[in-house]
């Protein structure tokens, strides 16, 4: 076990480095704006007049507290965007991308089970998400206090872990589609569409009584809906996401194992 994880990381490390650097810079930029936003009551009060759902969708509620600011500007907006783009892209490529390049034939001519290929590809995505998460947390830990963003490290860790879990789930959905169809663009499109729908639903549903009953169905709600930055780790939500991800990976294994490998 592990050879394919290593091989995948060796091929993708430069891209991961790029994602990591962008994430770190983006996080620094966001926290650097906190002092300005906190002190600008005109700005924050102008958002008050907007409907609550719009405020929620753009992360504009409670911008004056550090926790509210991070929740609104990072963990309910930019971080899911980064983590999901990364995970969905990798998931869609993991199987279908190898097939489209033609390298799946080469891999599977070795004495490898297809299940192992799926598991190790999934493992490589998980590892890379954890790396991204670790740098996200570390950046907040180092740069937060410099810009007056004082949030307990445990709470930012909780919010990061839930974001990683959200990435795992959507990466697994993309992997599942990739394993089922062998089509990269299709998998990417459908998984992105599902992510977009889930995001909008989670932003809007709390303010629409007919929708809010089913909020637990949205992965985004589990990731940040209960505000882990302010409230700390919610293990139930975290494991809900991780277990759902595992189910999709299992689905990917079953479906990939049943079909022809595309040449």
């Amino acid at each position, binding site marked *: 076990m592990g*050879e*394919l994880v290593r*091989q995948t990381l*060796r*091929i993708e490390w430069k891209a991961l480095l790029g994602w990591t650097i962008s994430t770190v810079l983006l996080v620094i930029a966001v926290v650097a704006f906190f002092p300005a936003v906190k002190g600008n009551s005109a700005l924050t009060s102008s958002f008050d007049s907007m409907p609550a759902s719009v405020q929620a969708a753009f992360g504009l509620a409670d911008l004056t507290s550090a926790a509210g600011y991070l929740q609104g500007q990072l963990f309910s907006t930019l971080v899911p965007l980064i983590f999901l783009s990364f995970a969905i892209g990798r998931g869609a490529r993991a199987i279908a991308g190898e097939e489209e*390049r*033609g*390298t*799946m*034939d*080469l*891999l*599977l*001519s*070795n*004495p*490898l*089970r297809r299940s192992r290929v799926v598991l190790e590809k999934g493992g490589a995505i998980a590892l890379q998400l954890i790396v991204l998460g670790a740098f996200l947390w570390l950046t907040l830990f180092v740069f937060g206090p410099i810009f007056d963003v004082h949030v307990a490290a445990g709470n930012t860790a909780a919010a990061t872990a839930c974001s990683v879990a959200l990435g795992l789930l959507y990466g697994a959905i993309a992997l599942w589609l990739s394993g089922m169809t062998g089509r990269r663009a299709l998998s990417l499109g459908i998984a992105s569409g599902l992510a977009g729908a889930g995001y909008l639903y989670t932003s809007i549903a709390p303010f629409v009584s007919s929708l809010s009953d089913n909020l637990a169905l949205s992965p985004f709600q589990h990731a940040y809906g209960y505000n882990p930055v302010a409230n700390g780790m919610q293990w139930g939500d975290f494991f809900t996401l991780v277990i759902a991800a595992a189910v999709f990976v299992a689905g990917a294994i079953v479906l990939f194992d*049943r*079909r*022809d*490998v595309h*040449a």
Partner: protein
Amino acid sequence: MNRLQGGRKGGPADEARCVPVAIRTEGLTKAYGSFLALDGLDLEIQAGEIFGYIGPNGAGKSTTIRLLLDLLRPTSGRAEVLGMDVRRQGIAVRRRLGYLAGELALYEELTGRQALRDLARLRGGVEEAYVAKLGERFGLPFDKPIREMSKGNKQKVGLIQAFMHRPDVLILDEPTSGLDPLLQRTFHELVGEVAAQGATVLMSSHVLSELEHVADRVAMISAGRLLAVERIEDLKRTAPHKVAVAFAAPVSTEELSAVPGVAGVDVRGTLARFTVHGAMDPVIKAIARHEVVTLTAEEPDLEELFIDRYEGAADG
């Protein structure tokens, strides 16, 4: 239909059965909707044999090969490699199998050395000295990124990864594509060596000429159906040879036509051209009665012969 090793009882087939079969397919069929990419293939390839698989592009060669690798799943029928079912015992089969894909794709980001090392690791390690030896033999620039390699160099990486773990069975789809003639010879020598050590080689090509100097037998496939399997030796022996003889003095058409096996005699002055079917001996003895200035016999074009002989079967 195409049962190649002949009858089950009596005759020379009994001897053939004593040789272990390395690759066997039984009614192997692959359909895509109503299109039959492979139609009931029955094939037996003996251990230690170099087996050529020829047919035009899209005839079903790669389909057969990818079915043997368990990359494709058959619509019906089955296949065995070294006595193991390729579906149920795929891992065990592929442990002893070397494969070169028809449309070889490698990880372009890596160098040849890195790519080969990764693949070796997936097999639990191979003899590094042997990899180095193969690389030297083919003249592979090990440390060049694959992205920057020519098609020929990429093909070398593909060949080395197929041979490096000393597999018992080699399945090579269009192995010589992209190789220059000198490297083709190196490759043919290598194939001969591993076969002499007992390995079985199945290699495909769209032209017979690439296989006739290495293969023991060739199968021809067209539109998903096996047309024929022939020993190269038999093909050569029965192939009509075109002969041209320059005599010192004119020899009559009738005299030459009377020689057993001779047909299509064309005499122009002292120069005679004709075709010889079967043994050359009566021809040599007949012309030896005259003074012969020059004698040329063309190597028969097996390809043409093969196609002529079996084209009818393809339509039928």
